[in-house]
């Protein structure tokens, strides 16, 4: 059975070591925060100028001047700091962020990421996506394995406008965990009850089954 969104978030949370700085993209990746065990010290960065982001506020304690990059009201943990956008993107572009978890429209087998525009669709904008994809030391992607129309999101070459080239390290979908290696996609883990054949059928590029035979990409 494929993983639910919350199960995907829980699985992604396992990818976050203690003592790291992590940026969670808008949408699916935002869910990961709730699955980090309290004893694990993770510093969440929000590119609008906040490090040490806490959970959503209790009702009645919302402050419209304390938001995340998705413009949702959040809180600030002890040890948190606020700063201007130039410093915030110095953190990102300067490779000081350990992990960014991003959504995707397409990921290519060489690690190219497309996540900001659909050809012919409404222009939604770039925001911090290109800087994050390029700047964080390790890029995890969280996405459904296929589109609403059943088309693979993991492909040989992206056909949508790129966010950044060869930047993705690992992909967590509703069906599997897949690494981007120098030899293409490599299966790391399957959702319970999902077969290798199903994942391969829904992936637009060859899937290697023995990732341990290859040296994994490393940031």
């Amino acid at each position, binding site marked *: 059975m494929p993983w639910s969104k919350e199960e995907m978030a829980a699985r992604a949370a396992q990818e976050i070591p203690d003592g790291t700085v992590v940026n969670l993209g808008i949408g699916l990746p935002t869910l990961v925060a709730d699955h980090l065990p309290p004893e694990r010290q993770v510093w969440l960065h*929000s*590119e*609008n*100028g*906040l490090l040490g982001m806490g*959970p*959503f*506020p*209790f*009702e*009645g*304690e*919302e*402050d*419209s*001047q*304390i*938001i995340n*990059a*998705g*413009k*949702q*009201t*959040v809180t*600030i943990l002890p040890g948190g700091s*606020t*700063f*201007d*956008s*130039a410093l*915030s*993107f110095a953190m*990102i*572009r300067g490779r000081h962020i350990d992990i960014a978890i991003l959504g995707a429209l397409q990921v290519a087998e060489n690690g*190219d990421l497309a996540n900001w525009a659909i050809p012919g669709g*409404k*222009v*939604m*904008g*770039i*925001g*911090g*996506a*290109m*800087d994050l994809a*390029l*700047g964080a030391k390790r890029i995890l992607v969280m996405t459904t394995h296929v589109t609403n129309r059943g088309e693979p999101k993991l492909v040989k070459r992206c056909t949508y*406008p*790129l*966010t*950044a*080239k060869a930047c993705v390290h690992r992909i967590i979908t509703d069906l599997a965990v897949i690494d981007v290696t120098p030899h293409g996609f490599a299966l790391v883990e399957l959702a319970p009850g999902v077969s290798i054949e199903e994942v391969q059928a829904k992936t637009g590029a060859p899937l290697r089954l023995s990732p341990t035979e290859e040296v994994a990409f490393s940031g």
Partner: protein
Amino acid sequence: MVQPLIGRHRQKVVQSVDEALADLFDGASIMVGGFGLCGNPEALIAGVVRRGVKDLTLISNNAGNLGKGLNAWIEAGIVRRFIGTYIGTNEALHRAMAEGRVEVEIIPQGTFVERMRAAGAGIPAFYTPTGVGTVVAEGKEVRVFDGQEYLLERALSADFALIRARKADRFGNLRFYRTARNFSPIMCMAARTTIVECDELVELGAIDPDDVHLPGIFVHRIVEVREHEDPFEYRTTRPRPLSP
């Protein structure tokens, strides 16, 4: 002997928004602080619509949302060109784009703010890794340093910056509050004339030297505005735990 003129730091505090915006002109480029609706100079934004200028180039991350903030400029038809990073659910802007009323230039957010910082810091151009191999690279010089490709990006200045601050003194030393800071201090540095709307005007010396977020050298005009809506864009909460 040359009779000294009065420098621009002598008298910055003005008594009204209209006075603060008196020298705006048609076709001006205007930076506006804020991330979405957070940290907007609300009274200055409304004042510009009242002022009746047009054909503006608006430089701001989002251009408002939910009919609020800079959506007022889009709907008033005074923006000819928008330079920013994200549109998202900004229906006013999507409409204006579709109808050909506003020309839109979208920039990666880190490049957007770094270009403004460069303008303020006397740096005419810099190289950045962001956008290499994407549509952002079109028409730009690509150069290799230490085996990696980078794009050349130019400084981005403007005629005016409209900025919201929590506190200001009469020299223009500013304090911002939480994530309302965002692009504001950088825009203060980048614009030829920086106009600040502060929640509270304080005495010189009320802000400790170590606690000034943006020194007054970058500020040209200050107006105190005590009332703000500070709207929520997405009010998200979690359940309060039951008391034991």
